[in-house]
């Protein structure tokens, strides 16, 4: 067993452990912090897969953006208001666990059908920013445009949805 394999096992175990922590943590803020750990370990795994650009994007977009956004909303909503309260249907977590075990078994079986060895050709394209950037803006230019439109629409949609109704605000001020 070489160093790369030991490193993969360590980081993968940390990643799975953090994922289990997200699902099982009692306090929602702890879940968000476990999620942060999970995203950082995945960024490390991306870099071991020669995807340096996506590793950096993972840290910036997920760890720096999405987790912070979720934490903001947790603070805004107040995590003490978010009880999990599954007591009256206590069989649900066990049904979920059973379905998850079936899912792992099926996916693992499907993925072990064809053993995929790492590529031997040394001329790996790599995922460094210049290579990915040139590829994105030549082969995938339509995709980049669509992503830009999607992000703009999502921005406007989030603004429209999260805005308080002006009349409601006036009433609140009058009270």
């Amino acid at each position, binding site marked *: 067993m070489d160093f790369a*394999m030991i490193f993969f096992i360590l980081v993968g175990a940390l990643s799975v452990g953090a994922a289990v922590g997200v699902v099982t943590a009692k306090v*929602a803020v702890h879940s968000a912090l476990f999620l942060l750990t999970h995203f950082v370990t995945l960024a490390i795994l991306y870099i071991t897969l020669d995807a340096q650009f996506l590793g950096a994007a993972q840290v910036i977009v997920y760890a720096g953006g999405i987790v912070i956004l979720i934490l903001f909303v947790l603070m805004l909503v107040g995590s003490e208001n978010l*009880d999990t309260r599954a007591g009256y249907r206590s069989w649900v977590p066990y049904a*979920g666990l059973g379905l998850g075990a079936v899912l792992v078994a099926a996916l693992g079986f499907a993925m072990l059908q064809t053993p995929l060895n790492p590529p031997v050709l040394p001329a790996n394209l790599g995922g460094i920013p210049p290579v990915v950037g040139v590829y994105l803006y030549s082969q995938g230019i339509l995709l980049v445009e669509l992503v830009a439109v999607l992000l703009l629409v999502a921005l406007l949609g989030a603004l429209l949805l999260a805005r308080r109704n002006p009349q409601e605000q006036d009433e609140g001020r009058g009270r």
Partner: protein
Amino acid sequence: MVATNFYLILGAIIFAIGAVGVLSRRNALIIFMCVEMMLNSVNLTLIALSRQWNNLNGQMFVFVIMAVAAAEVAVGLAVLVSHFHHTKTANIDDINVLKW
């Protein structure tokens, strides 16, 4: 180098943990986090196969998935906050206005 199969199986395990979280937790925010985990496991699979076949299309898809995940979180959290203003709850058992 680590064989691609190990990455695929790690992705499958993370996907299943996320699916279990979506099915069993009642807190809408934690369900969001689990959906993000599932999207990320697919990203891991795509990047592993992108290295396997020495093809950058996989990394391009991951780029798009990241953008979609960011948009989804922004809109989803806006819906959640907007709904929270009315009902003061984020328990998905109580968010059933559209239930027929």
